[in-house]
C-alpha cells in the first residue's frame, strides 16, 4: 500500500516552466491519492492559462497502458514545456522514460504503507521514500537506479557505464547525467547537498 501526497504548492510552482500538461493517476486500489487537492491545483494552473491539457487516468505505471491513454493527447503534450505528473514514483518514471526530451516533474511524494504493493513493471521502482527526488534527476530515481541509493551524484564505482555491484546494471547516475544533459537541465545537479530523511519513510511514522 502507499499514499501519495501533493508536494507543497510553491515547490511544484517553482519547478514548472512555460506551458504544462497535467497527468493525473488515480492509481490502483493500493494507492490513496489526494484527489481534491489535485483538482484544486489543476484549476489554479488552468486559471493562470498555462495548461495545454489534463488527463486523469489510472495505471500509468504500465508503459503500454500509458501509451494507449495518452494517444489522444499527444498534441497537447507536444505543446507543453513541462509534463506535471501527479502519481506515485513509478508513474513519474514511466512518463519520464516515455518522454525523455520533456521536462517531467513529480507533483507528489510517495509514502509507504504496510501491506500489498501495487502491481508495477519491474524496470521502474519507487522506494516510497516520501521526498520524491525525480524533479532533480530527470525522472530517474537515484534511490532505486543506484545500488548505493546515492542522492548527491555518481560514486567512483562505475566501469564502462555499468555498476560495480552488477555488471549487467547501468550506472543510475550516468543515466541521470545523460538524461539531464539531453534535457539541458544539468543545473539541477547544482542543488544544495541532499540529506535523506529516514523519519519520513513511512506515513505511519509521521507526526
Amino acid at each position, binding site marked *: 500500500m502507499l499514499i501519495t501526497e501533493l508536494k507543497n504548492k510553491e515547490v511544484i510552482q517553482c519547478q514548472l516552466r512555460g506551458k504544462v500538461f497535467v497527468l493525473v493517476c488515480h492509481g490502483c486500489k493500493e494507492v490513496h491519492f489526494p484527489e481534491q487537492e489535485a483538482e484544486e491545483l489543476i484549476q489554479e494552473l488552468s486559471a493562470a492559462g498555462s495548461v495545454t491539457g489534463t488527463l486523469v487516468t489510472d495505471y500509468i505505471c504500465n508503459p503500454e497502458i500509458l501509451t494507449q491513454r495518452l494517444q489522444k493527447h499527444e498534441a497537447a503534450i507536444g505543446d507543453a514545456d513541462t509534463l506535471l505528473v501527479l502519481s506515485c514514483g513509478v508513474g513519474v518514471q514511466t512518463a519520464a522514460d516515455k518522454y525523455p526530451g520533456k521536462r517531467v516533474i513529480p507533483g507528489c511524494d510517495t509514502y509507504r504503507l504496510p501491506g500489498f504493493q501495487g502491481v508495477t513493471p519491474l524496470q521502474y521502482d519507487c522506494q516510497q521514500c516520501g521526498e520524491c527526488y525525480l524533479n532533480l534527476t530527470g525522472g530517474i530515481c537515484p534511490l532505486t537506479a543506484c545500488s548505493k541509493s546515492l542522492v*548527491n551524484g555518481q560514486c*567512483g564505482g562505475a566501469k564502462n557505464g555499468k555498476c560495480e555491484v552488477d555488471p549487467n546494471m547501468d550506472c543510475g547516475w550516468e543515466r541521470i*547525467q545523460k538524461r539531464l544533459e539531453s534535457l539541458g537541465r544539468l543545473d539541477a545537479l547544482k542543488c544544495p547537498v541532499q540529506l535523506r530523511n529516514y523519519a519520513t519513510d513511512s506515513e505511519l511514522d509521521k507526526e
Partner: protein
Amino acid sequence: MRITELFDNGEFVVTAEVGPPKGIHVGHLVDEAKEYLSGITAVNVTDNQSSVMRMGSLPTCVALKNVGLTPILQLTCRDRNRIALQSELLGAAMLGIENILCLTGDHTKMGDHPGAKPVFDLDSVSLLHTACQLEKGVDLSGQALVGEPPKFAKGAVVSPCSNSVDAQLVKMERKVMAGAEYFQTQAVFDSEKFIRFMEKAKQFGKPVQLGVIIPKSAGMAKFMNNHVAGVHVPQRMIDALAADKERAKAGITGVEIAAQIIKECRPYCQGVHIMALGWEAKVPEVLKLAGI
C-alpha cells in the same frame, strides 16, 4: 599539521597510502611506514578498503602519529550512519588527527562480507558537509557542540580517467560546494587523459594530487583494466611489463612507469598520491626517479 597549509604555500604535496591489517598487530605496518614513508608529507590510512574487514583507520592513524608521521584518516559511508560518522570525526579530532579524506566507499557486495548491510546513510558529499557543520560547532541536527569545535583539512577523491568523466566533474563540483579543500585522484596511467581532465578541473580552484599505482605485473594491469573502475592501463605499458617478467617482478618496470607518469603530469597538478598496495618500499625510488 593540516596538509592544506602546504598546498596554500604552493608546495608539491606527496602522500602515500597504507591499509591496516586484518588483525591487531600494526608493528610491521608502522615499521615499514617509518622506514619508507617518513620523507613524504602524509600517509593515508584506508577504511576497510574494498569492503574487506580490517582494523579501523582511526587507531592505525594514531599508531602512525605516535611515531611522528602525519596520517590522513580515510572515512567511508558504507559502514556507519550519520551518528557514527560524526562521532568518529569528533574522536579523530580529540586524538589529534587533522587530515581527513571523505569517501562514499565501495559497496559491501564487493568485499569479504557480501551479506553485510550497506549503510550509505550519507555519501562523500554529505560527509564533507557534515565535517563543515562540526567545524562550525554544530552537528547535523543543529545541536551545538560543547567547547572548541574540531578543524580538519578535508579531502575528497575524483576519478579523472573514468568513462563517465562528465559525471565525475559534476560530482567534484558538488564536493567543492560541500567543503572539499583538496582532491586525490584514482590511479592514472594515461597522462594525456589526466591533463585534459585537469584543464576542466582547475576551474574549481582546489589542489589535486595525481593518483599513482606502481604496476606489479602485466596480469595486475589487465586485472585492473577489467575490474577496477576508473583505471585503464594502456597496452604499451602492459607490453613493457610482460616483456621482461623478472624486471617487472623486481619492480623496476613498475617504478619506471609510475615515475614517468608523475613527470608528465607534474606541471598540471599540485601533488601526487601513491597507492603502493604493499610495495611501500618502492615509494622512495619512484619519487627519486620522478625527480621529487
